[in-house]
């Protein structure tokens, strides 16, 4: 499987660490809503098809990526930085300013 890191380019999956279901919403830290916390920690969508996932390029730039992967075919339809400001760093690199 190849993941195209927006910063480093297409890389083998062994360079990445799976960091979980990208659909999870972390409740407000002070929230005492136990149902919401339980859903965040334990509930996973596990769809047969497109899935939003978080991957870290741990063997590369270490950025976290939001990856849409088809769980049936492993086709990856989109990859983006989780953090907006990484995107501007990648742009700067592309423009040769960093």
């Amino acid at each position: 499987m190849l993941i195209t890191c927006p910063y480093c380019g297409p890389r083998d999956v062994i360079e990445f660490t799976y960091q979980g279901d990208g659909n999870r919403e972390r409740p407000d830290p002070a929230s005492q809503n136990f149902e919401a916390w339980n859903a965040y920690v334990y509930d996973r969508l596990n769809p047969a098809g497109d899935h939003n996932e978080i991957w870290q390029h741990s063997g590369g730039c270490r950025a976290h990526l939001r990856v849409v992967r088809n769980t049936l075919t492993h086709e990856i339809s989109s990859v983006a930085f989780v953090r907006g400001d990484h995107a501007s760093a990648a742009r700067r690199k592309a423009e040769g300013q960093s």
Partner: protein
Amino acid sequence: MSPRRTDTGGRIDRLKTIRFTFDGVAYTGHAGDTLASALLAKGVTLFGRSFKYHRPRGLLTAGVEEPNALVTVLKGEVREPNIPATMVEIHDGLVAISQNRFPSLAWDIHAANQLGGKILSAGFYYKTFMGPVIGPLKGTRFWMFCEHFIRRAAGLGSAGSAKDPARYERMNAFCDVLVVGSGPAGLMAAKAAADQGARVILADLEPRFGGSANWSDETIDGTPATDWVRRTVAQLEGRDNVRLLPRTTVWGYYDNNTLAALERVSDHKEQPAKGEPRHRYWAIRARSVVLATGAFERPLVFPGNDRPGVMLAHAAERYANEFGVLPGDRIALFTNNDSAYRAAVALKKAGAAVVAIADVRPELSAEMRSLATEAEAEIFAGHAVVATEGGKTLSGIKVQRFDMVTGALTGDARSIHADCLLMSGGWSPTIHLASQAGAKAEWDAARQAFLPPKPTQQWPTQQWIGAGAFTGSFSTVEAIAEGRAAGLAAAGGTGTPAALPIVEAVPGEPDPAPVFEIRAKGKSFVDFQHDVTAEDVRLAHREGFVSVEHLKRYTTLGMATDQGKSSNVPGLAIMAEALGKPIPEVGTTRFRPPFAPVSIGSLAAERFGDLKPERLTPMHDWHVDHGATLYSAGLWYRPMIYGHAGETVEQAYVREARATRESAGIVDVSTLGKIAVQGPDAAAFLDRVYTNMFSTLAVGKARYGLMLREDGFAFDDGTTWRLGEQDFLMTTTTANAGKVMQHLEYFLDVIWPELKVHVTSVTDEWAGAAIGGPKARQILAACVTGTSVDNAALPFMGIVHGEIAGVPVMICRLSFSGEMAFEVYCGAGHGTHVWEALIEAGKPFGLVTYGLEALGTMRIEKGHVTGAEIDGRTTARDLHLDWMLSKKKPFIGSAMMDREGLVASDRLELVGLIALDNRPLNGGSHIVEEIDEANPHGSIGHITACCYSPALGKHIALALVKGGKARHGTRAHVSDPLRSRFGPVEIVSNHFYDPEGTRMHG
């Protein structure tokens, strides 16, 4: 008469004689022979004994799909079992032995199993090993006893126990076009793609490129097909953009066109060349793949079809044309299709008498009749072979009139004298790799075969392009045209006007008659390697195992080392007939990697032994020079003890720990994980990460912190030092350094991107030494300049900056040993310099170096926790760290840590244990309330760490025990049946030594 070498012909080098042994008998062969062809040339027909019934078996095939002739190859002490003799290239000094026979191949005692054939049917184990319900043999014990003998009788070759000294290596390769298979289709594809300038890899599992061209006796462009192969290969060899990989089996097809291949680099040599590995594992990433993997010929299923001397028609053609070996003198054929007639002609040409051709089809084309005439063979149209005769070799066959529509046999059986019977049940395209890539095979009623799906633009099946027999196009003319088209398409090129090579071939229609089995009396084998008969398949049907997946598991059809390459389709056909359904409705199982067996060594390649990465601390060489025994902790190497001559490990650590508590000791702590946490929001971030407060920590002070996971369980602990308002140095346990770093990065990147914090791993930038004991402060005072280290300047958990021997150092007063102790950090490059200065300063004070054992001993005495207790199942409360859970702020894990199950009163809690029998305790021992050595049960917990405590003069341990604190002062027992250690213990607080901390606070 028997098989023999022809006078001329074949792709072997008759001038080169090679000597080898099989079952201790010396033989000779020629360069270019396989073990199979060389032995067959010497008249050997018996190659092995079958899996279950120990029936004599000979060669069925000439290639990778061979199910019968499996041998063990011996190299010195190393034995490699279960290699098809058809895949072993002979070399001088080759030693091979047969398998699954006792005492010898010719006289096998287990052949008596054939008499019990009715009992040893499919599902034998499931049905038999149900214990009697009553009587002296009640239960399964008796059968467990029998199993040992049955397992010995059934099986393949045995693996050796000697260490494999061979070298294996791994290669990563990238190409535009990977062509799998080098027959006419593969060669055309490789050439067409290479001509477009594409980077091409051509792989074939055989030593010779050319595939069927090596034995088809066809003519291409006016010259023998073998000459065309040689010319084409020579053209490819001369190109920079082509890599040729002979002896390379592409065995796995993975996502994104990543393919795995095994190159047998030096198995065919007496000695590998210098630096040459035995096998090379290729991980190939290809932009596109051309599958030109050909097809496997299928056996026909009829009684006695497994007798030595019965082989596939094309295999005989191959032995004759490629190796110059006749598999018999009087040869009969049995077929349901045209391809066998070409074999008849080839064997006639090579010098054998072709006595009969039995064809299940009542009407034969004029071309086939003329080929039979050319072969001088008597034709039996509308006939079938119903029996074979002979013992360990074939002596004759019986044919009978056969109606291929009803399957009925009529008239009298006629005996025909023959020493070799060739069969052809049609061809199955080798679609394994496409199937691995996710393609669903489609049944083609005309070809009577599963064909790969037609190419689509749908992901992921568009990644490969098929050509030749793989697609069901069995003629060389089609293979050449499809090969070139596939090569062009794979390279992204368009059609070229150049004419295609002209092929002259024996005529023949590709479609067989839909006949798979002749039902007559006797054992008819479907899966030769696992001894599955047609009757076994019907038995599975009768007993309700009708799904193809159940059929496979119940009968083990297709589960042998050949993975059903020749048995799959006949087995499905017989099940389909039993069900009264067409074959496509029965379906087929999906092929999985590997296509053919793969050496484990090639998968490990260099990743073992010396080449494992190791992490060494800056002071590593000093430790080694000063007698440290090293201990591997993850990738790190750390001193375990600094033993004196004649000391045991226990004597050494007891001496080191005692000396530290009496005067002072020093230990290398450079392996601790260190993370710089910096930025305006660093303190706020740490408040969220740790259970306790860090924003209130003063600059120049350190604090012990505990982290939880999101689910509320304890994660890691360590001290974090506030070096500046926005500058923290976090330390983690050695084992969790990487995990903690990822944890922090995840929260900063994904959850709290608004926090202005940067984290950097600085583990390798700092060297650290912990120096502790009553005289530690005096030692520091003797060598540190630029700062005072007295109680006022350096209180407990205080930090100072100074110099040792001219090197800047940072000193924090904290204690893991429970003594007055200091951690001294300096730049990694100065580690040994500072370490030596500390050792020198400590000499007058009796400073000792201590290792992990003494470190562990002192931490157990103090009751501190490590990874053995923070094991992913314990909570802060379990470890009596609930005082660290801040109630003033939320933190990671705070919402989940109070769940019902995590605050229950019967959870395992940290306690101390003292052995009351004064004997050593064992890690992992269970704690019980009552000892029952015969029937250990009733565990209330287990030991996590143990040692002899010099401070207490007792054997002690830390343990996780149900109810924990409530049991302080009570007695229990250790129960360790594996090591026969039972005995009484007292449960006490985990703080064995100096619980008030007066020593470290000074």
